[in-house]
């Protein structure tokens, strides 16, 4: 299991990447900051960055909209 944004528990599996999470959650907004256990992940590295089990994942959308 991993925790997303300190609220939601998501299934973990071997090889799970940041990209997979964004796709699973339909997080399509481009202006985001992703961190895993506090470390910010480069935008270009989402496809290859593996998420470890039990990770604290944050996907912060920088949209203050409307």
């Amino acid at each position, binding site marked *: 299991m991993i925790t997303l*944004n*300190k*609220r939601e528990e998501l299934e973990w599996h071997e090889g799970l990447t940041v990209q997979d999470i964004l796709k699973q959650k*339909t*997080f*399509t*907004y*481009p*202006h985001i*900051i992703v961190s895993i256990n506090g470390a910010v992940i480069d935008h270009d590295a989402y496809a290859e960055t593996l998420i470890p089990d039990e990770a604290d994942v*944050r*996907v*912060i*959308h*920088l*949209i*203050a*909209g*409307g």
Partner: protein
Amino acid sequence: MTNKIIRHVLAEFPYQTPRIERGYANQTLYVNVGTGEIKAKPVSDEMKLKFTGGKGFDLWLLWHAVHDDTKWDSPENEIVISTGPCGGITQYPGSGKSLVTTVSPTTEIITDSNAGGHFGPLLKFSGWDAIEVQGIAEKDVMVIVDAIEGKVTIEEMPDAPNDTHLLGRWLYDVLAEKPQEKYYIAMVSAGTGAEHSLLGCLNFSLYDRKRQDVRYKQAARGGPGTVLRQKHIKALVVRAQPFKGDANHPADMERIARVGADIQREIATWDSVQNRMRNRGTSYLVEIMSDYDLLPVNNFKFGSHPQARDINGAYWETRVTQGLPDGCWYGCTVACAHAVDGFELQTGPYKGHKVIVDGPEYETIGAIGSTCGIFDPDAILELNFYCDTYGIDTISYGNTISFLMECYEVGILDQEKTGGLELTFGNAAASLEILHQLARGEGLGKIAALGVRKAKTYVIEHYGADPQFVQDIGMENKGMEYSMYMGKESLAQQGGYALTNKGPQHDEAWLIFMDQVNNQIPTFEDKAEALHYFPMWRTWFGLCGFCKLPWNDVVDPKNSKSAEPAKIPHHVQNYVDIFSAVTGREVDINEIIAMSERVYNFQRVFNIRLGKGLREHDYPPYRGVGPVTEEEYESRRERYDQQLREWLGLDPDAMTLQEKMAAHRHYRTERYERLMDAVYERRGWTRNGVPTVEKLKALGIDFPEVLAVVEKKLRAED
């Protein structure tokens, strides 16, 4: 000026344009179209200090004009328009907004609405920080502020057309002696729809130099266009002298230029890879909202739709004319005010005409499109055009139609009651037909003309609709229809909509992503803090003449490393610099928040004075809080069931659908009550939502007449 046009001058007031000093003309203009009185009123230092400008000036003037029992159609009600000290800057993007304030026909309290276009800045450069228009004229009149001739007139112009797109062209031709003079003319108008409905918007014009035509931006919320036409005013017009980029005579021009150059660089670098406002405007939001289950569909029942891609930003980018400097005031490089050119109308009195359609903006696409189940872009353009030229608020109209569509689908309305229209979700032809009926004051258009709150009463009284159901599904609070975001899964946004002064327009607080997606404000206290800071921050734009979009729609990614990225601290600092540089009054962010707090609390007291503005007026319809119908619950069953487990420790498998819905309703409404308590406390208000005497004293707005309103209410509470 052509001699053939009849101009019957009813009243005339000569004046000399004063020099604008540090963003202020230091006088406001009073016009009574009923009595013909026109006069200048001085702006005191205290007025500037305590009310800043824009909405602050509007409210202060309106407060002294009306009585405790003034209604929207009382002669003493006014339309007040002001930009603010920074309005008219051309070096910083988004610095040309005008704020309109009046007693609203739909909410019956104060409404305020902002618009781009050139009216506010040109009015100031013509010598007036604000215009207040009172009285009711006998026949249709124009109010013309003519800085070139040095006079203000009230005139009858019987040849003037009614609908805005015709009136604008006609009036610019009448008033401009040379073609270039059109650059410096601006008008505020409504149209035939505003004459026959409570949903009237105001069109603020600008002259588009590239298109060589008049275009419009709307101040729409709360029915100010209805008030304009009820006063028998066809247009408020300003004819200004040519001006330069330093027309505000700011205290420190160099500082403004430096900050301006900085943000222009940011926009040039980042907009194309972020929201692409310069190419598609606010329509970029359609796809995002649908992806995150936040796009209102079918009267806010659902939050997404596969056909949203037919009306998303990528589509509009192919449809709006590209490559033109589409700013709604000079110097705005965000330039999101796009238009579709040469659109051929298929219906109504202008069928076959080729017109410019301003927009469509996100709110309009959502309101007359997705929330009515309409995903046909041509229908959206046609509705958009007619709403604008008739002078009708697209948000309120769309909500009212979607409400009536749901009434039809559940059997409250039938074809006999709709005059033969099959008013199902998605029926664009029916929506257009009703819009034309509304403009003629006929048929079902007369019910749509009422807005959601009064349409609710109508279907209850005339068609025996279940009052609870109708209350639940009609998306209005305080009598104002909701703007286009689904707040069901964001408690903070529920408050952002309903714990507001004027009603559920997102310009006070837009917290959905911070709350629902990012989970950055998990506790009641966090949400209350956000519902203090953001409304105060956003209120400030409307005091100064700023547009909110350049604050947060294009942002350098390094902002993400700041302590509070949602506030966009480096842009906040820009505004601190600009305000200080224009006015010479050195401020910081705390003073900015204090400026807004004064005006915000003053507006709350104003609403109390008019008999509302209390806790009982701050409740959202349940459609904005949770699932009203079984269909809605089933559409998100997995999520709702999981919430029952996690939030309430219940086993949804052992419950009936009705039990599950009841459990949600109980939990969600109770949670909203707790939010109200937390927000009122943070704002310095009583549990009933009344600003305390201490709060008003701390803010320095403890004027005797203000305290009297509050003390009377507090005594009644005791």
